[in-house]
């Protein structure tokens, strides 16, 4: 049977092109638009928040998958870019979210090729079960760099 859960944030206008946001999980901060859209540098923007939501969600699901798949994760870093399309009528849409995760996994007692296959499957599962990736209509593209390290390489 399906279930629902609700998450919230509250924004308020401060002045000019400044706002303040309180996140449902606690943090709060000022935000603006990007500098190229009459906003300010150095603060949260809706564009960054959108890309961040997807990037963080996929990472958290990948962490979950590595635990379920018995993978010994050594490091994970992922740059994600959202590509914005500006239509002729000036409406805008993020058409793509492109992820470049760089993942290091310890081979342990398994064959490296088996661990790599399991890692790729974990990444697919992370995308499949990511709430945010599932919720956006932007195309999700994941281009991983996976390194499987032997015990000797890990200890170096």
């Amino acid at each position, binding site marked *: 049977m399906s279930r629902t859960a609700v998450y919230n944030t509250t924004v308020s206008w401060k002045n000019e092109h400044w706002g303040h946001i309180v996140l449902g999980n606690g943090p709060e901060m000022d935000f603006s638009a990007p500098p190229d859209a009459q906003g300010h540098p150095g603060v949260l923007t809706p564009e960054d928040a959108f890309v961040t939501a997807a990037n963080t969600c996929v990472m958290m699901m990948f962490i979950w998958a590595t635990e379920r*798949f018995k993978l010994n994760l050594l490091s994970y870093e992922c740059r994600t870019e959202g590509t914005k399309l500006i239509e002729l009528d000036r409406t805008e849409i993020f058409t793509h979210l492109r992820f470049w995760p760089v993942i290091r996994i310890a081979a342990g007692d398994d064959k490296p090729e*088996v661990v790599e296959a399991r890692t790729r499957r*974990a990444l697919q599962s992370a995308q499949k079960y990511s709430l945010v990736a599932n919720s956006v209509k932007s195309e999700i593209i994941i281009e991983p760099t996976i390194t499987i390290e032997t015990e000797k390489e890990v200890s170096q």
Partner: protein
Amino acid sequence: MITVKVLGPGCDNCKKLEMVARQAVGSMGFEAEIIKVEEYAQIMKYPILSTPGLVINEKLVSAGRIPSVAEVSTWLADAAMHES
């Protein structure tokens, strides 16, 4: 550990399915137990109309055909994601 059951009386297709299941488990390195269920009464406990059938963690995922290794790998991954 994931439990994989191959449902069928022991025909050629059942043996092929067992081989596919073993290949999928081996290629992914999942910890899984593969059990052959050949008794009719045990097979009929699952909502199955034709054999061979494949059950992963007590969920019937295919029946009446031999899925590919890639399909079985996907089902194994889904099962692993939902293991507590």
